[in-house]
């Protein structure tokens, strides 16, 4: 039983390290910011989740007390990763005119808004926030 648990822990640790590496490889290799966002926000978060689950299994199985820290870190990372990705994507969309040539080579144009009269919500919100 202990051998099986050790195998599972080792597997999760290797999986976590591999996913973290794949996410960072995507960050370094992909051509544009919007595609670069995919690597770190999905693969790297999953990799850290694997490491945390491994440590959650490791400590009780090796005679130490279980602590809620790993669970807290996992929850916090999985909640905050999409929020920070959304903020970075918004900063990129609103800064398109600022960065100019640095992104123009790779950047695909924004897709059309879903309705002809409507604008993308992120542009509308800044307009609405302005005082009259």
């Amino acid at each position: 039983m202990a051998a099986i648990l050790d195998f599972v822990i080792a597997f999760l640790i290797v999986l976590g390290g591999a996913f973290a590496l794949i996410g960072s490889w995507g960050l370094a290799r992909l051509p544009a910011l919007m595609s670069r966002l995919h690597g770190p926000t999905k693969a790297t978060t999953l990799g850290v989740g694997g490491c945390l689950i491994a440590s959650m299994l490791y400590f009780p199985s090796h005679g130490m007390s279980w602590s809620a820290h790993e669970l807290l870190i996992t929850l916090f990372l999985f909640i905050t990763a999409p929020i920070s990705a959304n903020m970075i994507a918004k900063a990129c969309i609103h800064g398109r005119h600022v960065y100019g040539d640095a992104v123009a080579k790779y950047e695909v144009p924004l897709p059309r808004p879903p309705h002809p009269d409507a604008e993308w919500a992120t542009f509308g919100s800044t307009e609405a926030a302005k005082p009259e």
Partner: protein
Amino acid sequence: MIDVALTIALTCIALAVVLNLYRLLRGPTAPDRILALDTMVINAIALIILFGIREGTTVYFEAALLLAMVGFVGTVAYAKFLLRGDIVE
């Protein structure tokens, strides 16, 4: 077996941090650098956790928890500054 797995995973994450450093230095835009810093913080959390398993203590988890919270706040503050030119309005 776990020792070998830890060595492999620590090597992978060290390589990942080097790749993040490349993106952080290369840019080309400010959001790219923010994204690279955010990923670097996440990789640092993974490094701390694996180091804690290797040393067999749980004292490092407080540092990992703090890094998770401060890293998120830092990323949001940077992105907010780029969006609005101000952090607290």
